[in-house]
C-alpha cells in the first residue's frame, strides 16, 4: 500500500448534526443537564454533552435507532427514542422523581 499517496478520506461513519433541547415537565428549558446516547443500533462515541442555559445541546448521530438520556443537576432523568441521520429537533423531557 502506498501510504504516501493515501487520499484524505471522508468520514467512514457519517453522522448528521442534530439540535436538541432538554425541558422539564412544564416545557421550560433545563440548563446544565447532561445528555448521552445510552443505546443504539450503531456505535456512537460515549461522550457526555452539557446543555446551555437555554437547555440546548447538539448530537451527531449516524443512521440507526437510538435512545438518549438526559440527567438534570437534581438527578432527575428523561429519555427519548430517536431515529438517527438527518431529522428535526430532539426534545428530552425531564421527569422529576
Amino acid at each position, binding site marked *: 500500500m502506498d501510504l504516501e499517496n493515501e487520499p*484524505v478520506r471522508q*468520514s*467512514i461513519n457519517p*453522522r448528521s448534526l442534530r439540535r436538541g433541547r432538554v425541558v422539564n415537565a412544564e416545557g421550560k428549558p433545563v440548563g446544565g443537564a*447532561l445528555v448521552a446516547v445510552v*443505546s443504539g443500533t450503531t456505535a456512537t462515541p*460515549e*461522550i457526555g454533552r452539557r446543555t446551555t442555559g437555554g437547555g440546548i445541546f447538539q448530537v451527531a448521530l449516524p443512521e440507526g435507532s437510538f435512545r438518549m*438520556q438526559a440527567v438534570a443537576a437534581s438527578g432527575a432523568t428523561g429519555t427519548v427514542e430517536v431515529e438517527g441521520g438527518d431529522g428535526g429537533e430532539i426534545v428530552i423531557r425531564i421527569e422529576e422523581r
Partner: protein
Amino acid sequence: MELKSVDNPRRKESGLEGLVGEVAVVEQPRQIVGAASGAADDSKSRAEQHFIVRGKRAKPLRQPGSALETVLGDVDRRKHILETDLSPWRMICALEIEGANGLSFIGTGWFAGPRTVVTAGHCVFDPVEMGGWAQRIRVVPGRDGDIDPPFGSEVSTRFSASDRWQQAQDPDYDYGVIHLSQDLGTKPGHFGLAVLPDAELHERLLNVSGYPITPGGGKDQYFHANRVKAVTARRVFYDIDTVGGQSGSPVWAYLDGSDDPVVIGIHAYGVGGTPAALSVHANSGPRLLPEVLELIQTWI
C-alpha cells in the same frame, strides 16, 4: 516521526502515523511499557483490593441480559470509587471540554506520562459535534465530586489526535491526547502501556473506570470489570458497563503477576455497530498496537 499536536487556533497536520495501522496484522508482537506508581501515598485502596480483576476467565463474570444497552444487563454493576487519591484511580482524570462551537462536553482521560493525558480522539477533536478541535479542556486527576481535587487541575489548550481520526473519524483510530504544561501526573503516577497478541487478549479480564454523566454528573469515578468478548485487528470488545462521559477511559489489565496497571485499549464506544461476524454486543475501544504505542510515546 512527526509530532502532531495542536495549539489553538487549530492547524491541519499531515503525516503517516494514523495510516500506518492500515497494514496492521492480527498477531501483534508483545510490547509492554511499565507504569509509574507516582510520588503520592502508595497505600492500597480497598476498591483496588476488592474490585480489580486479573488474569483470564473462560466465562463472563456475569451474563449480560440485554442486547443494545451500554449498561450490559438488567443491573448496573458499576462501583463508585471513593478513594480517588490512591492508585490506580488517581491516574484517571475527569475532563471538562469546551468545543470549538462553544458547547460543553464531559469525558475521561488517563496519565501516560507526567504531562500527557490520553483520551478518545473525539474528546479533543470532532468536526461534527464539537465544530473541530476543543478550545480548552480542564483536566482533574482523581476527581471526587466537588471536594478540592487531590492533585489540582489544569486547563489545557493543546491537543493531538491520530491523523486517521482527524481525516475520517474512523472509530478504530479514535485516540488522542491532552498536553499539559505542568507535571500534573508526577504525584498520581501513570499507567503502563501494553500491546498484546490476540491470544493473550482472549478471555482476559479487564478493568474500566471513568467519569460518566450518571451517576455523579461527570464528577464521580465509576468502575466496572469483565472480560474480553472479542477482538478485531484494531479494536477490543468487552461486556463492561459504561455510560456517556466515560469516553477515553483506560481499559487496563495486570500481566505476569505484576501490580502495574497496563492499558491495552482506550474506551470510546457503546454497543451498536459491532461487526456482525463477531456475533456479540459489547462496548469497545481501539486497542493498543505497536504504532499506537509508538504514537503515544511520541506524544509523551
